[in-house]
C-alpha cells in the first residue's frame, strides 16, 4: 500500500517479544547476497530501467541467473584477478632481475648452497678489501650500471654475520634474486613472453564480462529489486511487537490516508484486527518526549527539486516549516543577481540542459532543475545589468548605443548608471530600458543597498517562521523574547543605516530607539545578558548579504578584463597599432578570440560554482539559523513498501 511508516519495536515491553521472519526470508536474503556479489563483479550501477520484467519471468530465470550465469561470471572474474596477480609478480621479478645483468653469473649460481652464504645487492663503496679482512675465503663479483654498483658476495656460512655487518658499513642494500635458471637476459625474455600470453588471455575474458554485463544488466537489477522487496516483506515482522497469539504494528500514516489504511487493512485481515489512532493529546505528549515523528515532505512539483537543498541540511521536524518553498523563491533570484549575464546564463542553461538529458538519476534531475531555473534568472538579470559575456563589446553591437542627448537627460534625472571607474559605455537595453553597469560607482552603491535589503527581507521571513515554529512547540518565551527582537533588530538596524545615508534624522532616532528596545527584550529573554553576545552575529548576518554584489563584481571584473585584454590590448597590438576593428589582421582576431574563449571559459566554470554555493550559504547560515531544525533535524516519512522500477506491476 505504501502508506504506513513503521516504527521499529525496541523490545522494551516485557509481555511483547520481537517478531520472527515469516516464509522464505532466509532463502530470499541468501539469494540476494549471492546476486549482489555477482553484480559487484560486473561493476553494475543502479540506472534508469531500459525494460521491465513481470515477476513470473524473474522467478523462472532466477535459478539460472544465480547459479549458471553467476558461476560463469564469478569464474571469469576470478581468473582475471589471478592473471592480474601473476602479471604483477612477473613484473616484479623482471624489475629485480634487470640490475643483475651486469654480473657475469647465471641465475642458478645464486642459490642452492649449504655451506655458502650469498649477499646480492647494491653498495656505495667498493667492498673487496674489507670482506677479505673478515673472511679470507670469499668470492666477489661486481659490476656497475646506472650510477650504482652491484655486488654478489659468496662467503662461508659461519662468516655470514660478520660479512653482513661489514657490508652494511658500505651502504649495502639487498636485492632478492628470483629462483630461476639460465642467464639473466634469457630469464627476462621468458618472463616477458609469459606476461604477453597472460595479457592475451585476459583481453577476451574482459570482453566476455562486458558482454555478459550488457546482456544481463536489466534482468539482474530487476531480480535485485524483486529479492529486496521479498526480503523486506518477509522480514517486516522483525519490526513488530509479538505475543503468542497476536502482534502489534506501530507506525505513522498521513492523517488524510488513515481511513484508506484502516479499511484496506481490515478487509485484508477479514476483520481480525484492530486499527487504533492516537488522540491529539497523546501526539502532543510524544512531541514533548522528543519522539521522532516522521514528517512527510510534500510540495508542488515545481518546488520539489529544492527539497534536495533542504534535505542536504536537515529533514524538517514534525512541527517545523519546510523551507523548500522559500528556497524556490529566493535561491534562483540570488543566483541570477550574482551571475547576471545574458551570455553566461544561456551557456549555463545549455550545458545544464545537456547534463539533464544525459544523467537520469533522481539526484541529478533535481540538481539540474534547480540550476536551469536559476540560469533563466541569470539571463533576466543579464538584461538588467547590460552584460553579454561581460560589460564590454557585444552588448553595444547587439543592443545598440544610447544617443548622447538621452544620456544627458538620464544624468539630469539621476538615473544614469553607465559612468563608472572605466568611463561611459553608453548602452541601450531592450524596450529602451537603460541597463546599469555593475562596475559603475552609482551602481555599486545601489547594489549594496539592494543586497542589504534582500538580506533584511530574507532574514525577517526566517525570523517570522522562527516565531511560528516556537509557538508551535509552545515556547512562548523563546518566540517573543528570542526570535522577535532579532527580527526587530535587523529591520530597524537596516532602517537606521538607511536614515543615516538619506540624512533623515527622524528615521534614525526612531530606529535607534527600536534597536535599543530590541536589545533590552533580548536581555529579558531566555538567555539573559548572554543573548547580547549574539547581536554582532545578527548584524554580520546582514552584511553577509553583500556577497550578492561582491561575487557578481568579481565575475564581471574578470569578464571585463578578458574583453579589455582581447579588444583593446592584444588585437590592436598584433595588427600594428590599429584601433579600428575593421583594420584588425586575421592573426590578431584569431589570437584575440582564443584569449576570449579561454578566459570566459574559466569565468563560466567559476560562474556555475560560486553563484550556487553562496546563495546556498545565505540560506543555510543566515536564514535557516533563524528558524530551522533547532532541535537537530527530523525523520523523513518513508512508508513501508516498494517502488517498482524494473518490475511490471
Amino acid at each position, binding site marked *: 500500500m505504501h502508506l504506513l511508516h513503521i516504527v521499529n519495536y525496541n523490545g522494551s515491553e516485557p509481555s511483547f517479544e520481537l517478531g520472527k521472519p515469516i516464509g522464505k526470508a532466509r532463502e530470499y536474503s541468501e539469494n540476494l547476497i549471492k546476486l549482489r556479489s555477482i553484480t559487484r563483479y560486473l561493476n553494475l550501477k543502479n540506472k534508469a530501467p531500459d525494460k521491465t520484467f513481470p515477476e513470473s519471468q524473474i522467478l523462472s530465470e532466477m535459478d539460472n541467473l544465480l547459479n549458471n550465469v553467476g558461476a560463469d561470471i564469478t569464474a571469469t572474474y576470478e581468473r582475471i584477478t589471478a592473471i592480474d596477480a601473476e602479471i604483477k609478480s612477473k613484473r616484479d621479478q623482471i624489475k629485480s632481475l634487470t640490475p643483475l645483468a651486469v654480473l657475469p653469473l647465471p641465475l642458478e649460481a645464486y642459490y642452492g648452497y649449504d655451506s655458502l652464504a650469498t649477499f646480492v645487492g647494491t653498495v656505495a663503496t667498493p667492498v673487496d678489501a674489507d670482506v677479505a679482512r673478515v673472511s679470507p675465503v670469499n668470492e666477489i663479483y661486481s659490476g656497475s650500471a646506472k650510477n650504482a654498483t652491484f655486488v654478489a658476495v659468496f662467503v662461508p656460512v659461519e662468516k655470514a654475520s660478520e660479512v653482513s655487518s661489514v657490508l652494511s658499513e658500505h651502504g649495502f642494500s639487498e636485492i632478492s634474486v628470483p629462483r630461476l635458471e639460465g642467464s639473466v637476459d634469457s630469464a627476462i625474455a621468458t618472463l616477458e613472453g609469459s606476461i604477453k600470453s597472460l595479457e592475451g588471455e585476459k583481453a577476451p575474458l574482459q570482453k566476455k564480462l562486458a558482454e555478459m554485463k550488457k546482456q544481463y544488466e536489466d534482468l539482474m537489477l530487476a531480480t535485485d529489486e524483486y529479492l529486496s522487496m521479498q526480503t523486506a516483506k518477509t522480514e517486516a515482522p522483525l519490526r513488530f511487537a509479538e505475543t503468542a497469539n497476536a502482534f502489534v504494528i506501530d507506525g505513522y500514516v498521513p492523517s488524510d490516508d488513515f481511513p484508506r489504511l484502516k479499511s484496506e487493512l481490515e478487509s485484508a485481515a477479514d476483520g481480525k484486527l484492530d486499527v487504533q489512532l492516537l488522540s491529539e493529546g497523546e501526539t502532543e505528549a510524544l512531541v514533548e518526549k522528543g519522539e521522532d515523528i516522521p514528517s512527510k515532505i510534500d510540495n508542488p512539483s515545481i518546488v520539489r527539486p529544492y527539497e534536495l537543498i533542504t534535505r542536504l*541540511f536537515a529533514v524538517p521536524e514534525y512541527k517545523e516549516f519546510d523551507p523548500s518553498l522559500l528556497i524556490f523563491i529566493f535561491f534562483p533570484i540570488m543566483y541570477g543577481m550574482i551571475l547576471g549575464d545574458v551570455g553566461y546564463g544561456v551557456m549555463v542553461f545549455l550545458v545544464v540542459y545537456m547534463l539533464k538529458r544525459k544523467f537520469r538519476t533522481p539526484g541529478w534531475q533535481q540538481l539540474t532543475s534547480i540550476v536551469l531555473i536559476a540560469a533563466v534568472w541569470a539571463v533576466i538579470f543579464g538584461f538588467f545589468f547590460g552584460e553579454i559575456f561581460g560589460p564590454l563589446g557585444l552588448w553595444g553591437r547587439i543592443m545598440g548605443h544610447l544617443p548622447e542627448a538621452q544620456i544627458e537627460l538620464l544624468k539630469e534625472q539621476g538615473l544614469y548608471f553607465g559612468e563608472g571607474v572605466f568611463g561611459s559605455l553608453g548602452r541601450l537595453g531592450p524596450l529602451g530600458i537603460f541597463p546599469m553597469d555593475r562596475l559603475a*560607482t552609482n551602481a555599486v552603491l545601489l547594489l549594496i543597498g539592494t543586497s542589504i535589503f534582500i538580506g533584511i527581507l530574507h532574514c525577517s521571513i526566517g525570523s517570522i517562521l522562527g516565531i511560528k515554529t516556537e509557538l508551535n512547540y509552545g515556547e512562548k518565551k523563546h518566540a517573543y523574547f528570542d526570535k522577535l527582537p532579532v527580527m526587530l533588530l535587523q529591520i530597524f538596524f537596516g532602517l537606521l543605516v538607511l536614515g543615516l545615508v538619506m540624512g533623515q534624522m527622524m528615521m534614525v532616532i526612531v530606529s535607534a530607539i527600536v534597536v535599543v528596545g530590541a536589545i533590552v527584550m533580548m536581555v529579558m529573554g531566555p538567555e539573559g545578558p548572554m543573548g547580547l553576545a549574539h547581536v554582532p552575529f545578527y548584524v554580520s548576518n546582514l*552584511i553577509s548579504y*553583500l556577497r550578492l554584489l*561582491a561575487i557578481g563584481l568579481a565575475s564581471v571584473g574578470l569578464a571585463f578584463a578578458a574583453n579589455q585584454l582581447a579588444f583593446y590590448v592584444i588585437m590592436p597590438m598584433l595588427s600594428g597599432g590599429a584601433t579600428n576593428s575593421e583594420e584588425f589582421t586575421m592573426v590578431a582576431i584569431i589570437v584575440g578570440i582564443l584569449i576570449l574563449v579561454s578566459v570566459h571559459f574559466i569565468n563560466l566554470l567559476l560562474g556555475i560554482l560560486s553563484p550556487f*554555493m553562496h546563495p*546556498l*550559504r545565505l540560506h*543555510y547560515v543566515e536564514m535557516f539559523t533563524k528558524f530551522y531544525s533547532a532541535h537537530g533535524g527530523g525523520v523523513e516519512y518513508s512508508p513501508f513498501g516498494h517502488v517498482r522500477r524494473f518490475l511490471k506491476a
Partner: protein
Amino acid sequence: MAVVADAGSLYGLLAVGAGLATGLAGIGAGVGEQGIGAAVVGVVAEEPGFLGKGLFLMLLPETLIIFGLAVSLILMFAWTPFSGIVTP
C-alpha cells in the same frame, strides 16, 4: 584650507588600503577554512549525510572576506574623509 597632499596620491593610498582590507581578510578566511575543510572532508568520507552541515560549517568564515570587502567598497566608493583637505 591648506593643501596637505594632492588628490592623486591620497586616492592611491585609499586604493592600497582597500586592497589590503580585502586581501588580508581573504587570508584570514582561508586560514579559518583550512582546518574546517580538512575536518569536514574527513567526516563526509565517513558519513555522507553530514555534507550539508559540513558545508554550513565550512562557509562560516567566508563572512570575514565580505567584511573586508565591505570596508574596501566603503573606502573606494562611499567614504570621502579628505574631501575637505584635498583641493583637486
